[in-house]
């Protein structure tokens, strides 16, 4: 579904991504694991058209995305939940969801999608009139993911959904991701929280200093001693 080939991203002289190739197949959940500054967000932002790649190709269903303006991406079926969530903090939960539904290709099922989002995140239904910026970090993450779902995407890009969340809230968010995935959505997520991610994902790529240093199925990576040492805190889960 998505094929990233030989992608490089530069910020001035700094090479954030160096010749990275990643593939995501339809229905898969693919994780990009790596430490701070490994280039995970650069990869997701390049696919999400928030940063311009220096070189490489982005193929989505055979269509080249690397020159597509950012605002047209969501209409082609890719929804991004960026680092920092990118919600509208001074608008209500309901208004955030409505804005999310504007680029949907099929506007007839907006009501259905809203029900689905409310079923996955019941809090968003309870607090529909609350100003999004006054909610807790986990709830704001739910607004961000819920809003992305409102656009009826085929591919959901998530940048560190667990960042800054308490462990119990992270569990809640990951449980929601499991449900979303159960609905047949293809997901690519970037995470530092390797344990929770590998428990849920099909495959993962390991990113270090802007390069892909390993990849495999989640179950293989969970038992790989090098991965256990680097990402899972030494003891196999």
């Amino acid at each position: 579904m998505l094929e990233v080939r030989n992608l490089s991203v530069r910020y001035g002289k700094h090479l954030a991504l160096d010749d990275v190739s990643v593939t995501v197949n339809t229905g898969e959940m693919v994780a990009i694991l790596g430490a701070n500054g490994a280039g995970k967000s650069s990869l997701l932002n390049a696919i999400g058209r928030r940063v311009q790649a220096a070189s490489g190709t982005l193929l989505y269903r055979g269509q080249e995305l690397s020159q597509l303006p950012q605002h047209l991406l969501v209409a082609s079926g890719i929804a991004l939940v960026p680092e920092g969530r990118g919600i509208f903090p001074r608008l209500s939960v309901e208004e955030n969801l409505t804005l999310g539904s504007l680029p949907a290709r099929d506007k007839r099922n907006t009501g259905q999608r809203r029900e689905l989002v409310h079923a996955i995140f019941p809090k968003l239904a309870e607090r529909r009139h609350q100003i999004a910026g006054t909610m807790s970090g986990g709830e704001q993450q739910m607004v961000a993911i819920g809003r992305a779902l409102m656009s009826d995407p085929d591919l959901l890009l998530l940048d560190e959904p667990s960042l800054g969340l308490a462990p119990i809230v992270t569990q809640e968010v990951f449980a929601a991701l499991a449900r979303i995935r159960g609905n047949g959505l293809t997901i690519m997520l970037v995470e530092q929280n390797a344990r929770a991610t590998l428990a849920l994902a099909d495959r993962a790529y390991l990113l270090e200093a802007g390069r892909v240093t390993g990849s495999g199925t989640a179950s293989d990576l969970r038992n790989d001693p090098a991965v256990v040492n680097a990402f899972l805190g030494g003891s196999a889960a």
Partner: protein
Amino acid sequence: MTTLILGLVLGGTYALLALGLTIQYGIARIMNLAYGEITLAAAFVLVFLFQAAGISPLAAILLVGPLGYAIGWALYAVMMRPLVARSGGGSRLEVDSILATFGLLFVIQGLLLMVFGSNFTSIAYLDQGISVFGVTVALNRLLAFAVCVIAGGALTLAISRSRWGLVMRAVALTPSSAPLVGIDVNRVARQAFALGSALAAIGGTSVAMYQTFSATDGVVFTMKALVIVIMGGVGNVPGVLVAGFALGLVETFVATMIDPGLTLAATFAIFLGVLLWRPQGIFGRRA
């Protein structure tokens, strides 16, 4: 009572003018110092249409409003777009746009002086008085007031209730998030700038209906609109409407009770007071 009603009429014009300026600044992020020139140009066009072509001012509004929109659209495309592209979304746009529109101010003013001359201009249109709550008010003022209330009210409703308004508010509040939901920020900014120009033009037609004006008055309109925007809180539509009426009332009060020469001084005294004690605006919230 006379002061109150005349003040409300003046305030209606001010509120509409300030609404246009705050839309341009809040959504397109352009502080347009040539704003009052658009107002004046529209006022002159209305006078011309009335005197030379015999078109009634009410019909002229239907012509001048869309014309203001088209001119705003063209100004944005030709003059502002390169500045926006160069700023890359940074704060440089604010400085650049102030300098660019400051220049535009003198270009339009020069054109107005050349075409319409430097004389004071006014028209005699529906100036018979009618009685409102026991006060005699010229019909043209009431009409101008109605125009402002209808245009301003419709727009305020559209911004707070409609889907289009939601997109406008989203761009005004968090432009960086807008592309994530498929909003083309540049397109919305151009629409907002054009809409602001249309409001400036409609405000100008209401000015022409009951005031005397000259080609060099534009800067006064810009400054008053700016004072109101800052009083109401930048980007705060209800705040701007209330502040607009408040300024109209204060000016009329000062002119009738103290001295007509002091109206501008009163305006700027309020402005200074707001800047010193409540920089977020009387009705604005703290950032």
